């Protein structure tokens, strides 16, 4: 986390002159100098860093260069949209991915498996935005049944504006979440399949068969349990990737989330937003890694209990 904070901070101070970026051409030298003092830019670097951290932990990231609004406000406005989208996509990707992965892993050479694999390969080759455009074209332009942009109506729950509780909100989330989940789903399918195939070749599976245990039990109790361990790590990383890829999806569907914000920030070199986004992402990743570690601890007894050797 600290590393990321430092990177954000360096962005802030070293990339371009913040003052020049913030104010227009017309501001006089005197006014610029005053601004510098107010923003504390004349203090020593370490002091600025500490202040940055203090502010960051309070959720203050300064003011956006381009939009002239406090960054933290912008973020809280957009965060729910992104999180909801990521949540739905994650569920789709994980559930469909694991189910299909297990199926193709067990039935290695069946016709259906090969079709699923072919489609999954296609899925990896389709850039997210192409999928998005395709779906929009199909469902919005030609069939006209689903909206092509925006979030639909939202219900304000105080600090969180959710789109789950309205019909238009639900409709609006279908296309973007499918788009976002497709890439990850195909990745998970291939991974789970590879895992299952490898496990089904191990000695303990062979021994279980030799003891007469039914094929079903072997697949679901023995193989699957062992196969899920690496999937957990991947699932964790996946959620992080989803958050990143939401940038693309949000752009295509004009979904008002943090990703969209970030792209604008990159285009206009809006440093405060960029650094704030970085910090947030890093935070999410650290949290996910932490949760994954805890899950590992519970599932794999080799980590929980020390062995003899």
């Amino acid at each position, binding site marked *: 986390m600290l590393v990321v904070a430092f990177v954000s901070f360096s962005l802030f101070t070293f990339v371009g002159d913040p003052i020049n970026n913030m104010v227009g051409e017309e501001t006089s030298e005197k006014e610029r100098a005053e601004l510098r003092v107010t923003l504390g830019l004349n203090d020593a670097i370490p002091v600025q860093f500490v202040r940055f951290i203090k502010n960051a932990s309070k959720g203050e990231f300064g003011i956006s260069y381009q939009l002239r609004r406090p960054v933290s406000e912008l973020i809280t406005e957009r965060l729910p949209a992104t999180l909801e989208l990521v949540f739905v996509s994650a569920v789709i990707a994980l559930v469909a991915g694991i189910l299909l992965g297990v199926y193709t892993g067990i039935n290695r050479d069946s016709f259906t498996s090969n079709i699923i694999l072919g489609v999954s390969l296609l899925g990896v080759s389709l850039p997210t935005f192409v999928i998005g455009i395709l779906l929009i074209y199909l469902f919005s332009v030609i069939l006209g049944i689903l909206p092509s942009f925006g979030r639909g109506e939202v219900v304000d729950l105080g600090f969180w504006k959710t789109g789950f509780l309205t019909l238009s909100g639900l409709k609006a989330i279908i296309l973007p979440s499918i788009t976002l989940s497709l890439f990850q789903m195909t990745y998970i399918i291939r991974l789970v399949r590879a895992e299952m195939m490898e496990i089904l070749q191990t000695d303990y599976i062979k021994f279980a068969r030799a003891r007469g245990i039914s094929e079903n039990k072997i697949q679901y109790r023995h193989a699957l349990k062992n196969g899920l361990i690496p999937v957990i790590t991947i699932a964790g990383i996946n959620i992080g990737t989803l958050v990143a890829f939401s940038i693309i999806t949000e752009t295509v569907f004009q979904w008002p989330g943090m990703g969209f914000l970030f792209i604008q920030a990159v285009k206009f070199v809006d440093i405060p937003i960029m650094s704030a986004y970085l910090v947030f992402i890093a935070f999410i990743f650290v949290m996910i890694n932490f949760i994954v570690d805890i899950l590992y601890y519970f599932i794999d007894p080799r980590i929980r*209990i020390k062995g003899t050797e």
Partner: protein
Amino acid sequence: MSFLKINNLSVNYIMRKETVFAAQNVQFDVSKGEILGLVGESGSGKSTVGNAIINLIDEPGKISEGSIFIDNIDIYRDPKTIKTLRGKKIGIIFQDPQTSLNPLLTVGEQLIETIQTHLNLNNGDARRKAINLLEEVGITDAENRFDNYPHQFSGGMRQRVVISLALCCEPELLIADEPTTALDVSIQSQILELIKNLTKKRNLAVILITHDMGVIAETTDRVAVMKKGILVEIGPTKEVLGNPKAEYTKSLVSSVPPTNKKINRFNVINKIDNQVNLKILNRWKKKELIDQNLIEVKNLKKSFHDGIFSESSSKDVIAVDNVSFNIKEGESFGLVGESGSGKSTIAKMIVNLFKPTSGEIYFDKVCINKIRDKNVMLKFRRQIQMIFQDPYSSLNSRMKVYDIIAEPIRLHNTLIKDHELKDYINNLLESVELTKKSAERYPHEFSGGQRQRISIARALATQPRLLVCDEPTSALDVSIQAQILNLLKDLQEQLNLTILFISHDLPVVRQMCDRIAVLRYGKLCEISDTENLFLNPSNSYTKELLDLMPKIESIYETR
């Protein structure tokens, strides 16, 4: 009354370039209460037969003809039959206890699952039965260990768990596929005792598959010898091993290192001529042997940080603990011990792969573990060479044999001309009984034994004075082992080499070495002349090892 009858069994593997006949018209039977040994070298088909009985042959293998009868039922007539028999009438155990158990389920869970698959018991009864089983196979404190995970058991204990799993539904036939190969000698004898006891107690029909003649001699009642899929000879163990009739059996038995005497060379029947043609003698600057210590090891200690598993207080694993010994020039010195004894670590320190934690190693009176100058080190490197245990990983599979052997020569003799180099390499290859054409081939085109020969050629290329042999024949078939050991002996005599021979196999060490040091858990137990050690061991651990090692001569003892 035979319980298992194998009639005219043939198993084929149909592959891209050829069809492999893994088993051809194999015929034998096993009765209850007897242990039949199935012995052969790699590729003999012994494991294939074992797998065929429970129909777990790996793809693309198929039974092409023949039938198997268990308790007078033809098990292959109805494909469903074999599935009901697995675990219920037939139990099988495999070689590696580490990979045979599901790491995520407790031992108890795996037992109960198997029990409830075949027997109609409720949870409480199944649990009681499982605990009884664990006790029967010799696991103390079975009630508590019931809830342990596999990784909480040691190797030998794990194999006992595996045996309990195979027997929990009261099968009448037990197939044991190399059950003790992965275990230490002391544990091995315990497991074999256990199998013998269980056979008697439960009146089992047992097939013991192994490549180890000593194990056969000590454990089995009858034995079947297989070679390349064909059953060569079968009969009571005493007869087959003591008075073999088939040519192959004869050569196999004579290749086994005797445990009760020292012989000059192994009697290898297939060899064309017994004269070794050491062409490299032309170029070898043979050193005259002086009666001095070539190697002196003083208070050698090596510890490793076991930082992976422990957290804050990193536990130090002491691999080598205050070991001292000397090796005279021209002699063959043996380092013997079980796994974890530190013998390999000592070898690796002598060839400077590891640096000792403390202590000194002197080569020709110079302390070599303290040398910092690369050039000086290079001078010593050319005098100490090593050959390794695994013939498959000791050669770079991407390099031609020519380049593999040329590498050390080019490094130490930068001025050598191409045609000289070629001549020298050819001489080296011929000295290890390989043809000149071998130089143009790649390692994967050679067998295990041939690869070891290439390793030896590479080791000899710099004309070393000390050759360290780290379990050089442990991964080879017994007949090939005999050839390689003969070769090493010839080379030593002709080239005045000093050899440091490391092994866990006592009979082999007896044949190869003049003096032996016995190690245990990093400490030196005993050093003595070979014959003295075997006939008159002073250390209790040595005595134990000698007692427990499987001896082919046991067929002459009364049971």
